[in-house]
């Protein structure tokens, strides 16, 4: 059992469930938020060890905004305490949309991207790597 706290920010309850079950079975304490604003509020409330973030929520790029907010380099940022909180971003890479955004740390300050559907084994391995112990 570990006491690590994970915040899932995703608007899809089924997706949240599919993430929550493997996390909880691995002993993580899971918190959920259903949109960007709620997610940001929850970060302050929970102070999670890691955030799992969906890109498309209320808007197609809501997840990007949350990531930019949390990891802002601005010293006056309201979230400066969470700058180091690792983020796993869930993506559904597809080429047909004109909104093309490279999953690239140059563009987005997130630790890693996981493609949906998420394989629980891969997710847990990633967590062990990002927040060991």
């Amino acid at each position, binding site marked *: 059992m570990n006491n690590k706290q994970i915040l899932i920010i995703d608007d899809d309850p089924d997706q949240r469930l599919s*993430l929550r079950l493997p996390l909880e079975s691995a002993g993580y304490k899971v918190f959920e938020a259903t949109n960007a604003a709620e997610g940001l509020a929850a970060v302050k409330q929970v102070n999670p060890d890691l955030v799992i973030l969906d890109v498309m929520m209320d808007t197609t790029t809501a997840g990007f905004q949350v990531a930019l907010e949390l990891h802002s380099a601005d010293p006056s940022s309201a979230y400066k305490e969470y700058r180091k909180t690792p983020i796993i971003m869930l*993506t559904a890479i597809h*080429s047909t949309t004109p909104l093309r955004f490279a999953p690239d740390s140059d563009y987005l300050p997130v630790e890693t991207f996981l493609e949906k*559907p998420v394989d629980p084994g891969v997710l847990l391995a990633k967590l062990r790597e990002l927040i060991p112990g």
Partner: protein
Amino acid sequence: MALPSLPGKYDSENSSGMVTSRRRLVDAELVASVAWLIKLRWIAGLGVILATLAMEVVFRLDAATGPLIAIGTAILAYNLIFYLGDRRLARNNAPTAAYEQLAKWQVGLDWVAVTLLIHYSGGIESPVILFFLFHIIIASMLFPARTAFAFALLAIALLTATSLLEYFGLLPHEAIVGFLNTSLYQNGLYVSAVLLFFASAALIIAYLASSIQERLRQREEEVVELSESLQRATLRLQALNDGARTVGSTLDLSQVLNRLVMSTAEAMGVRAVSIRLLDQSGKRLEPVAVYGLSQEYLNKGPVEVENNPLAREVLAGNVVNIPDAPGSPLLQYPEEAKLEGICSMLSAPLPGKEGPLGILRAYAEEVNRFTPDDEAFLTAIAAQGSIAIENALAYHAVEALDDVKSQFVRMVTHELRSPVSVIRSLLRTVSGGFAGQISDQQRDILERVSRRAEFLQGLIDDLLDLAAGKTDVKIQARLERVALTGIVVKVVRRYELSASEKGQELEWIEDASCKEIRVLATPESLDRVFNNLVSNAVKYTPPGGRVTVSLVCTEEEAIVTVADTGIGITAEAMEHLFEEFYRAPNAKEMEREGTGLGLTIVKDTVTRLGGHIAVDSKPGVGSRFTVTLPIYEESAEAEAGETPEKSATVAY
């Protein structure tokens, strides 16, 4: 251009009518006459010398040979000066005034020469007197009537002076001895009679020659005017033709209309031309293209159909010619037209397929400027303009529709993919035992469900790929220069593991010359193409087989070949290979799952990228797919102007 008013060349600056065309005509004639006169004078000078010698040698007459030859020589001498002067004027592109000056000097000196010739050949008795008459004709041809008469009077004065001086013995009489033996120069009656007849002959000739010349000039002017109006007509036809071509070549509405108003104004030779289109409410006319009107005039106020009798009249389908705009009751803003200096207006409706689109209007500063010809011309232009406007509007509508389509595809992408994706996530969670222990049978069922969900996901992806290619007319705008080798290598790497798991050999052969080549595409589309081909090759090749991917380049093309030693394609299957949802029976047998869309997508994508695909196969032996893509040349980029921006991959 340094071309001075070339006769016959229509030039809008000089088109203001009679005065200039007449002026040009007279000028050109004067320049030509000066040269012609100089040529004639060589003969005249030589003639004087030869005639004197003939008198002396052949007829044995005793004349003032010395002075006569001197006069002939002098004529030749001053003609040489005129000759050089004329050449210099021509070289310096001198104004006509300089030629006129030269002509006056010539005629003046000729007068002196003729007078001297008369004096040295017998004064009033001299037959040379007659020479004055053709000189008067020449002067009439060169100069306006007034100047010609002045020269005629000068001739009369010179002859009268010479004969009177001789008569009174103030000037020695130089008779040609042996020609006339009576001394007629002392016969008052004879002298008076000759002088009187000479004077009347000179004046009559000056009058006749001037009149004939004047009439000739008038005729010529008519010809010039006629040819100018022909040229104007040609120019109009050209404007019409330009309009037609503009309509065909560009779909940018404002560009089309701005060109149209400008060329119309130029072709009609008027101050301004405007196009106003009805707004969406159909109540107001908004200026969309204007040439030659001031901003103040355009800002005069809204043009509302309700308050504008002229607009109503024109929109009803009539061409309206207003000869005196400031005084017309049809105008909504007569004061403003007056301030703008507009006196005539010609308005033609822009006829649309479903009612009038707006008004094409020409403005002129002259009162009563527009003729029925202008009306016909403006109507023709309006018809062309309407086509342009409707084409552009239709194009905008298609573009808007395309945006809607793309948005739809985007929405479908998300709406279809996410539930399937969530289903798969949940299935993995359950089959991974994260939701409690499951029995073997349950696991087996979950795996079957997973396979179906995965197939569904693949089908959706393929359909979207296909839809993306078919619906996105703007795909060209997104193309970028993509390093082909990198993409192919990435795809080959992707399948290395599965190939080795199947005991296959996956080989990659690269032509060294292809290292740097780029093709105009998107990385995703290229990935899609080669991923499909390599995945098929690995899928349909039995264990122990071989898959070879190679890239070779010619000067213009990159050729990627994906060859396998797989099950091959039958002749029958070959016919349907690229059809949507088609799967060959032997492929189905080997792999149950498959959408039958992969090769359709490959062919569709390759075709859109300007390439082509070829297949070569023998059942049981293997297949070879050859994709040929045009190599993007750097020079083409400079011509195209801008490089497509680097774009990235989609993620959401």
